């Protein structure tokens, strides 16, 4: 039944269901219509909102230059879909090709796309997490609540200095709020960019008045008699008085609803092949279930075919487009998802961007600019080749390094670059922490070679 006849029928009259109505889900739906799919299209999303953009939530929204309920994504194409918003998918029957919904409904599909993303890892201690003043930031409702609370906050405690935590600290400082940041590693952004660059991030934070405490963990949150957050206890025995705490300890894949479905889904995501087709628990690729966005783990040729999990905006868009194309294409017309990881952040007035997989880097070379000036390009090397690059306010060089990564160019690069300084003469260790420790915030995780590996590499403690 997979002959041309089926595909033609599928494209004109088939039923496509997309679970997860956010960035990846929307872009996939648009691509399906754009490529001529005229069958029925259903988008299922547990949030009650139309697809909106998340990156502004930790930036413009907290700064007050955009509002949390006004980051809806512009549409590229009319998608003529049935929207089931505010209702979660609770189960999947792969044999019957049906998705179960929280309201008891079932929706049948011919092809299914799973784009359920991730959720913020909550504070591990439940009663402490419930204290008034303790927040996470993933959704627009989170952002609205936080933004409201910040207007009366006295001191904000940020737990975990990954990208999201650091951006929140930056916005709070810009609003004039006292901020304490507690990070288990030796510096902010260390899990994503390594210790050399992390040191620069630490200096940036301190210069902007952040009370930055590294190498420490928050061991407990304490409330007053009315259940409002009063202070936090740190692993060095000190106490930080704060009425707002932002838990930014990274994210967990939204795969719990797939438990028992037979799909290769676990806390590290859903494994799929380079064509975005999901693997089942036996390691056999499915024909009709596809995956895209933050929830996916997919193998990448540039990185030894290890499975990559990316929490990157650009990946969600690119992978959604490939998945959608492949869902309605014959096997010879399918495309691989070979997107080179790319990420941006802006914090403390600096534009930070990266390409490739920095955390694979053994060494880093400051190819241009200077760390002390907060304007530089760092190039990461792995086994003698260029594997990633990061820029602080030097975006224009990134594309060049992307090509070096794509071409597996030798590391250190064979030529000196314009504006290279003494510190860029020799590579130094990139200084990544033990990979078994969690990294915080949108980042890249390599998750081995097994499509059915459902173990988690680390046990998140308190950071």
């Amino acid at each position, binding site marked *: 039944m997979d002959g041309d006849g089926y595909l033609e029928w599928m494209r004109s009259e088939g039923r496509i269901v997309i679970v997860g109505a956010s960035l990846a889900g929307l872009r996939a739906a648009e691509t399906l219509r754009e490529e001529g799919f005229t069958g029925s299209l259903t988008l299922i999303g547990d949030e009650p909102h139309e697809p909106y*953009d998340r990156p502004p939530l930790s930036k*413009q929204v907290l700064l007050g230059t*955009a509002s949390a309920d006004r980051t809806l*994504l512009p549409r*590229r194409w009319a998608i003529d879909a049935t929207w089931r918003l505010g209702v979660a998918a609770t189960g999947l029957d792969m044999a019957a090709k049906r998705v179960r919904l929280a309201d008891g409904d079932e929706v049948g599909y011919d092809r299914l796309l799973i784009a359920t993303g991730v959720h913020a890892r909550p504070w591990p201690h439940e009663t402490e997490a419930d204290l008034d003043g303790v927040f996470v930031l993933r959704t627009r409702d989170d952002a609205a609540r936080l933004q409201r609370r910040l207007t009366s906050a006295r001191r904000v405690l940020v737990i975990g200095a990954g990208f999201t935590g650091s951006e929140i600290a930056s916005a709070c400082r810009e609003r004039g709020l006292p901020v304490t940041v507690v990070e288990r590693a030796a510096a902010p952004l260390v899990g994503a960019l390594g210790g050399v660059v992390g040191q620069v991030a630490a200096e940036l934070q301190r210069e902007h008045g952040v009370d930055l405490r590294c190498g420490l963990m928050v061991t407990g949150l304490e409330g007053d008699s009315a259940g409002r957050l009063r202070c936090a206890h740190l692993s060095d025995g000190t106490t930080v008085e704060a009425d707002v705490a932002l838990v930014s300890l990274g994210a967990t894949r939204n795969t719990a609803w797939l438990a028992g479905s037979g799909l290769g889904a676990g806390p590290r995501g859903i494994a799929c092949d380079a064509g975005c087709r999901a693997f089942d628990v036996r390691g056999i690729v499915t024909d009709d279930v596809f995956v895209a966005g933050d929830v996916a783990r997919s193998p990448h040729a540039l990185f030894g075919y290890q499975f990559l999990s990316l929490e990157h905006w650009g990946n969600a*868009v*690119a992978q959604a487009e490939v998945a959608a194309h492949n869902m309605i294409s014959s096997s010879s017309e399918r495309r691989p998802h070979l997107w*080179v990881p790319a990420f*941006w952040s802006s914090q403390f007035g600096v534009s930070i961007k990266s390409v490739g997989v920095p955390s694979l880097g053994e060494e880093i070379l400051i190819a241009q600019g200077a760390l002390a000036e907060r304007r530089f390009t760092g190039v990461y090397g792995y086994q003698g080749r260029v594997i990633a690059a990061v820029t602080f*306010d030097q975006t224009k060089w990134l594309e060049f390094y992307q090509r070096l990564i794509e071409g597996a160019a030798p590391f250190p690069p064979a030529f000196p670059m314009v504006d290279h300084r003494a510190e860029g003469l020799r590579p130094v260790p990139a200084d990544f922490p033990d990979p078994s420790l969690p990294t915080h915030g949108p980042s890249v995780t390599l998750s081995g070679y097994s499509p059915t590996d459902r173990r988690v590499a680390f046990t998140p403690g308190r950071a």
Partner: protein
Amino acid sequence: MRLVVDLNRCQGYAQCAFLAPDVFAMHGDEALLYNPHADDAQREHVVRAAAACPVQAILVEDMGDATAPVREGLSGGR
């Protein structure tokens, strides 16, 4: 009116901040912050900014002819 900037693609040229300063603003030298829901009164400025962006990183909903899909610009990578 909804808009989004592909900030992987954006090079911080500030062309948009020059043409529609009420919607796009540079934050430091290269970081762009924009309002993802611009006032309709800004439409003309925003459409001009999107057209003038050297890397076509700005996607505006309903740009010009509503039936013509806006395809250029956003596609994640390059």
